[in-house]
């Protein structure tokens, strides 16, 4: 890890959970790696998200990656030498009415036909058993029993440290300013000089569109700031993570009693200043949903609210896989506010693709080619 090191087999741009995981898995495969991060590992979306480790309610195009990842989450301590605060008490999608439950049934049936069995339809009785505090009006829902949650910054940093221990060179506080072709190699220019490699991974999150633009692969990336809030410690009343379909809500009580409330309501992101501005009107709507569904929460003091800076693609699916234009360029960004769970598995699959040229895990539908100008109608 000499300071003078300027080239490696792989350069990863971005130190979120995806960049760190890919760097770690590349290092495990014996590749030399430099990871370049403008702030510190997990500074943005990877460090301040809700920590949900969820297979539940994912788009079918993501399910194979998600399944790969889930297997890794369940042996996370063996993988990165830190339990990452991972707990597995399941995630429950609560149906608010019969129509909602009908949609749940259709979804589970569809997954079954496709050969996926991680989602399970539950009736009112099982819902009450799993989530006793939920309002009596809810008729059932869906559970994914192996799901859970982890501590985001801790997990991201665990991947970083493990990558480091395997020889990856992690450069925090180094900002990439431009990426360009340099003979057979790629030159990654930064505010701390240039780096060279034959293979680069664009895992730059909410800043990844700038890298993609340098590579003449522009993408319609939207910079978003999903908001979260957390309460003071409450008596233990819920084990699984709860999400809603109709109204937006995600809801999780930690072991220490604090309750995390999210739902994807957006604040304002000012990405060039690393700053976000909260929208209290929307957080009030978020709070109202909790007020309706969990009467026990009404007096809970809200201690903090915040938002991360995150990339969202128009179809809410990540950009994952090889570049459509260049040899040696790989994209791994745009996880659209649900990339945390995918981090471990996506890094493993990406490293496999980089090292061997392919992977058995299907990633169809996630390629950057879907945004190529010629592909537009």
């Amino acid at each position: 890890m000499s300071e003078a090191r300027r080239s490696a087999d792989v350069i990863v741009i971005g130190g979120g959970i995806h960049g760190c995981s890919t760097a770690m898995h590349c290092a495990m495969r014996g590749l030399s790696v430099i990871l370049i991060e403008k702030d510190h590992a997990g500074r943005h979306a990877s460090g301040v998200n809700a920590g949900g480790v969820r297979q539940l309610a994912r788009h079918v195009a993501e399910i194979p990656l998600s399944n790969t990842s889930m297997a890794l989450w369940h042996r996370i301590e063996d993988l990165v030498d830190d339990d990452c605060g991972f707990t597995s008490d399941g995630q429950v999608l609560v149906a608010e009415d019969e129509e909602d439950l009908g949609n749940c049934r259709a979804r589970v049936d569809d997954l079954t036909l496709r050969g996926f069995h991680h989602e399970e339809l539950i009736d009112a009785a099982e819902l009450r058993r799993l989530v006793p505090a939920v309002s009596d009006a809810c008729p059932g829902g869906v559970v994914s029993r192996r799901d859970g949650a982890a501590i985001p910054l801790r997990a991201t940093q665990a991947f970083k440290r493990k990558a480091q221990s395997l020889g990856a060179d992690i450069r925090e506080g180094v900002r990439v300013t431009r990426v360009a072709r340099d003979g057979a190699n790629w030159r990654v220019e930064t505010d701390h000089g240039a780096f060279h490699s034959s293979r680069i991974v664009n895992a730059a999150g909410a800043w990844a569109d700038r890298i993609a633009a340098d590579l003449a692969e522009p993408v319609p990336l939207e910079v978003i700031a999903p908001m979260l809030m957390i309460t003071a410690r409450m008596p233990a009343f819920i084990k699984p993570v709860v999400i809603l379909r109709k109204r937006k809500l995600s809801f999780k009580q930690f072991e220490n009693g604090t309750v995390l409330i999210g739902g994807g309501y957006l604040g304002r992101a000012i990405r060039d200043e690393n700053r976000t501005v909260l929208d209290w009107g929307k957080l009030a709507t978020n709070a109202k949903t909790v007020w309706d569904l969990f009467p026990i929460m009404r007096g809970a003091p809200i201690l903090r609210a915040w938002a991360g800076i995150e990339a969202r693609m128009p179809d809410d699916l990540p950009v994952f896989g090889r570049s459509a234009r260049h040899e040696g360029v790989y994209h791994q960004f745009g996880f659209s506010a649900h990339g945390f769970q995918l981090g471990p598995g996506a890094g493993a699959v990406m490293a496999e693709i980089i090292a061997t040229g392919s992977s058995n895990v299907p990633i169809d539908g996630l390629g950057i080619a879907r945004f190529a100008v010629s592909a537009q109608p």
Partner: protein
Amino acid sequence: MITIETIGQVAEHYDIAVVGAGPAGLAAASRAAELGLSVLLADENPAPGGQIYRAITTTPVTKRAVLGEDYWKGGALVDRLRPTNAAYAPGCTVWSVAPDEAGGFELGLSLGGQARLIAAGQVILATGAQERPFPIPGWTLPGVMTAGAAQIALKASGLVPSGRTVIAGCGPLLYLLAGQLAAAGANIVAVLDTTPRRNWLAAIAAFPGFLRSPYLAKGLKLMAAARGRLPFKTGVTALAAGGSDKLTGVTVTRGGASETIPCDALLLHQGVIPGINLANAAGCAQHFDTVQHCWTPTVDDWFASSIPGIAIAGDGAGIGGAESAALRGEIAALDAARRLGRLSEAERNEKAAPTQAELARSLRGRRFLDLLYRPAPQFLAPPADETIVCRCEEVTAGQIRDTARRLGVTGPNQMKAFLRCGMGPCQGRLCGPTVVELIAQERGVSAEETGYYRLRPPVKPVTLAELAALPPTDAAIKAVVR
């Protein structure tokens, strides 16, 4: 002055919102209102005065000598506000300040259990100072409190600690409080002075400035009065509060020897630092002031922060004392009026000139005090591993040192993810400076490089019910009506 009693009486919009009704806030609100601007002065306390003039209009303490002549000066600040049209909202917490899309600011308020969002063109944060954390073994035991808390009880309710009382620490306020409590009848069995002797070496260069200082006569009087009457012990190098379920004594180390003084109350104080939580959560830039040895919002000569439209007046932008706070509030209000177009730049400059001169005079000698009363390193970064640093989450100094070393944690924001320090209801007010100190020490870097917590609104807790019932803002209603 229009006193606001319910949240419904707060208007949708003010030219200027002033947060905090201590000397800076009272002066800023008065000046702004006198210039014809609409002003909201929001303050958490039930009565104006801030900490220094706490309960100035309501205190049951009637013997003027107990609290000292300086305290009673606060009355004039309130009297100045009375004839104005400023809206004064006591018992009102400002839990969020954020830029809105119209170029002004949105403030989250809470009053009488109800929350509300309002708008203001300009914001002056006059949130004042807080006591510097003083983490020693046993400081979480019942019976141990900050000297400031004892002073609140005295001013607001005329109460003094019962039983044998020990006061420990350093700084001018320590002597003031010792004198006030003694005058009010407290049984002070020891005053333990932790001022490091070598501080004189650093401070002596600033002594000429102190000789021309308004603090000099006042300070000497305070010191002489306290020293003459109270059992002082100087050169204290270590302190530990003892007792199993409540305080029974304090162990003091001086000159290498330790003794235990039995007591029922231990009042700790090692100076004040700016209360930065609201400014930090609003996104105002801050830096580490190496003379005052604390994080301070970065402001210009008009006390404007890095965010155009937010000014920070008074001790919240660097400790200067009550007199300077009022002057700084005045200057910040003039600049806010200029930003709102009420004053031209020339008018602002002209009106501010005498106040600026007075401010310079009031701050003379400050540097000497800052250098002399800088706490010893062992009281900033507790050497004993078992000392609790984050009281909300019960995180110890040893855990922080170990995590910084073993996991290579470089700053307090990362530390939160591993130990939860700073994630409790106080949002790091009681642990932030200590956590920074410990990480900096462990890594061998400066506090500035270590950084500080990024704080999040609500700066003070709001209940879910309050938030859920948040009335839609004027802007949101209009958006729907259109």
